[in-house]
């Protein structure tokens, strides 16, 4: 494998930006955001430079590595802090730095009224650095460092406005639920080291052949747990909705385009493990399918625009996980959907931020309406993202999502049919709730309050939205034209035999479009023909109520995990008081009691002490007498 000396700059630039901004403090308030944006952009250009180098090499020589330093050296256990850039990493590098830079630009304007804008940019740069480390690490341990780093950055950014207790709680919730997943990753690393003796990607890949299926399955399941935590997949999905407490650029960058897709990256990166562990792979598919429907159903009921988009994100990542779980045929499509989703979802989030910017930070869609006239650019970019997520040809989602649906159908057997139907149904529901968002926000009558004065955002904000909208339109075609991405990534995955096609691509596209049309039609009838109440109606069906409460995910977590934990804590506190403290105080009491009891012996008469010594001597001699008998 070739070595490179410039990989480190990808990470070092944003990391340096973060350090400078945090250490310089208020002194850098004036220029901090510009520095951060500049460093993020330079990191993007380093990425482009690496891509150009990579394109110039033959297929097998494309991956490059760079050893930074010897990190851990304990006996035979040696891990270097090394970076590795291959065809998969470069996709992520460009997505992270590209979208990241656009969102930096957007944030300059969006956060301009915030006194702590410099700190925000410091955290954004920290996130970029950590996320790059995550995708560039050449071993699971290096990945883990980045994995924790993005968790930290996510925590800091969700709770950026931590003066509001609800937001601080949301950041804590995200952090704690992520810890559950992180534990899975650490377990996976430990099992890998215990069974294979190595944790580097190349080492594990080489060791897979002579490792038991049981070990591989457990590693795979633990990796899946890690992925569910970071990517907000069932059953660790509950934090994503609350994570919308963070500033909208954060939601766009971290909780839509990049960090939440780390789970997909992890599973795709570990393809050699999942290919050898069918049980774990099946679980991946199941998790993806459940989350796909879960997020879609939540999305239908949310009135908060950001939470509706978050539910959509959850659902779309469900598609990616499902795709990644389909094995060698699905990895490339999962990554493709990840990339296109990065464009259109980030664009829509930025659009939502633009709407909020014009509406005094109002997030309730029922208080929007008829914004098309006031925010034409936002409407246009959001609309392009909307068409992309629906999968209308020739927008991006059409290529990536249909590929996953088609692959699901072609898995074969009952599994294929079930998965295909789930993905199709998900597409229909997606069409419904996204149409709902469009109608409630941009069309119909205005329902906003009197003090709202909707206006178009400044150019610093709409320019990134426009660029992302272009990406939403073209990325699908560019990536799938001549199977570009599939061929690009193919050296990383095992070649697979072509399945007998159950349904031809044309039929799948037709079915998907039909489902989308039905979804759009229902939403149109329900929200465009009928009047929309400015206050959410309460006399709704039980299903709506449940969906509004995120399908009871919080209640479930509270009942199953929190309540027993609280009971356990209460029991432990009582035990601590009764047993531990009791023992400690008991020792004191015993000493005190025996002391006051023995005080009577202290007569002050030397002779009585002598008598006691004599009695002691008698006891000693008697003991010797007994022992030597």
């Amino acid at each position, binding site marked *: 494998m070739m070595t490179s000396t410039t990989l480190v700059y990808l990470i070092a630039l944003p990391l340096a930006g973060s350090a400078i901004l945090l250490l310089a403090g208020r002194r850098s308030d004036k220029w901090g955001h510009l520095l951060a944006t500049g460093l993020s952009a330079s990191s993007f250009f380093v990425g482009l430079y690496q891509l150009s180098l990579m394109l110039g090499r033959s297929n097998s020589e494309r991956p490059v590595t760079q050893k930074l330093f010897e990190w851990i050296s304990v006996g035979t256990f040696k891990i270097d802090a090394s970076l590795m850039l291959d065809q998969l990493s470069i996709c992520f590098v460009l997505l992270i730095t590209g979208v990241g830079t656009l969102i930096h630009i957007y944030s300059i304007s969006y956060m301009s009224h915030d006194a702590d804008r410099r700190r925000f940019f410091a955290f954004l740069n920290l996130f970029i650095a950590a996320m790059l480390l995550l995708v560039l690490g050449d071993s699971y341990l290096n990945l883990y460092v980045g994995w924790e780093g993005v968790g930290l950055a996510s925590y800091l950014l969700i709770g950026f406005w931590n003066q509001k207790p609800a937001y601080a709680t949301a950041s804590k919730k995200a952090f704690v639920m992520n810890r559950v997943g992180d534990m899975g990753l650490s377990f996976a690393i430990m099992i890998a080291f215990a069974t294979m003796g190595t944790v580097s990607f190349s080492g594990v890949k080489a060791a897979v052949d002579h490792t038991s299926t049981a070990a591989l399955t457990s590693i795979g399941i633990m990796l899946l747990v890690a992925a569910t935590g970071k990517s907000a997949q069932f059953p660790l999905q509950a934090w994503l909705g609350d994570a919308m407490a963070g500033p909208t650029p954060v939601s766009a960058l971290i909780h839509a385009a990049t960090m939440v897709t780390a789970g997909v990256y992890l599973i795709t990166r570990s393809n050699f493990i999942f290919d050898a562990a069918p049980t774990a792979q099946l679980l991946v598919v199941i998790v993806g399918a459940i989350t796909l429907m879960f997020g879609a159903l939540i999305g239908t009921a949310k009135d908060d625009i950001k939470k509706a988009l978050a539910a959509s994100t959850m659902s779309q990542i469900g598609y990616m996980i499902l795709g990644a779980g389909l094995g060698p045929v699905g990895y490339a499509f999962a990554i493709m959907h990840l990339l296109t989703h990065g464009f259109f979802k980030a664009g829509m989030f930025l659009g939502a931020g633009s709407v909020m910017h014009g509406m005094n930070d109002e997030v309730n869609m029922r208080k929007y309406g008829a914004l098309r006239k006031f925010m034409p650019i936002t409407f246009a970019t959001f609309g392009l993202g909307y068409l992309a997520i629906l999968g209308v040809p020739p927008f991006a989602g059409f290529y990536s999502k249909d590929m996953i649906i088609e692959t699901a159908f072609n898995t074969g057997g009952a599994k294929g049919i079930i998965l295909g139907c789930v993905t199709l149904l998900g597409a229909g529901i997606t069409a419904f709730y996204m149409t709902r968002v469009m109608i409630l926000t941009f069309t119909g009558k205005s329902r906003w309050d009197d003090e709202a004065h909707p206006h178009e955002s400044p150019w610093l904000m709409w320019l990134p939205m426009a660029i992302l909208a272009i990406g939403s339109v073209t990325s699908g075609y560019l990536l799938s034209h001549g199977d570009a991405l599939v061929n690009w990534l193919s050296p990383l995955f095992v070649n697979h035999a072509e399945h007998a096609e159950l349904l031809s691509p044309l039929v799948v596209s037709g079915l998907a479009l039909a489902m989308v049309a039905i979804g759009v039609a229902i939403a149109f009838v329900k929200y465009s023909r009928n009047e929309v109440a400015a206050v959410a109606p309460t006399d709704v069906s039980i299903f709506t109520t449940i969906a509004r409460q995120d399908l009871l995910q919080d209640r479930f977590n509270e009942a199953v995990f929190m309540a027993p934990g609280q009971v356990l804590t209460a029991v432990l506190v009582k035990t601590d008081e009764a047993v531990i403290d009791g023992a400690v105080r008991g020792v004191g009491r015993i000493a005190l009691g025996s002391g006051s009891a023995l005080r009577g012996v202290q*007569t002050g*008469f030397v*002779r*009585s002490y002598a*008598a006691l010594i*004599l*009695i002691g*001597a*008698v006891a000693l*001699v*008697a003991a*010797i*007498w007994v022992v*030597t008998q």
Partner: protein
Amino acid sequence: MIDLAIQVGQTAKPEATLFWILAPLSVAAALGMLLVKKAVHSAILMAFVMIALAVFYIAQGAPFLGIVQIVVYTGAVMMLFLFILMLVGVDSSDSLTETIKGLRPTAITAAVGFGGLMISLLGRATLGRNAVGVEAANAEGNVQGIASLLFSTYVWPFEVVSALLITAALGSMVLAHHHRIQTRPTQRELSIQRFRSGSLANAAGLPAPGVFARHNAVDVPALLPDGTAAAASINASLKARGDVLNSSVFELGNIDTSVEEEK
């Protein structure tokens, strides 16, 4: 006597005789120590026990220790005891009634148990064992044998013990040293005080014992000019011991005795 004792020690029969005479006596003397009222008598009985032990040492082939026992213990230590007795307590005799409730029965029971267990243990340990005897070890003389051990194997403890001895001597001097709170009154001051005390009776100082007496002895009171016996002329310790004769026997007759007796 040493030669005799050594000879006694070397033959079984005379040693047994010696033992059976001296052992009961020493036990009786030890018991007597506990039972007599006067500390002086205890000290005498103690000295007897120590001398008896010295004889036993000599009889058992330890003439050096026997001599040391007599010289150091009976000579020095017991003299020290008697000296202190004279200093503090010779004029008092102990009451043997017990003041701490239940102490005496407890002590005696414990002691009987202790002695019984010890003797039982000793019987168990020594039954059927014959003494090797120190004749071989004493081949070059007992003093030489001990010296060679003391200055080779035990030279370090020996030095440490000498340091201990010096420390103890210094320590006891420090302890017993009496710090004067005031300056000692001079003879002139004492004389002025005597004349100013109001009474002329003791202006001339106390009479010495035996002055104008028919007996010339320390326990006979002096006769004052008026013919009465001066009780103040007798040492208080003698009085306390009861070792003083009735002073009225020595008075000259029925002459006026109104002169105050000053102590």
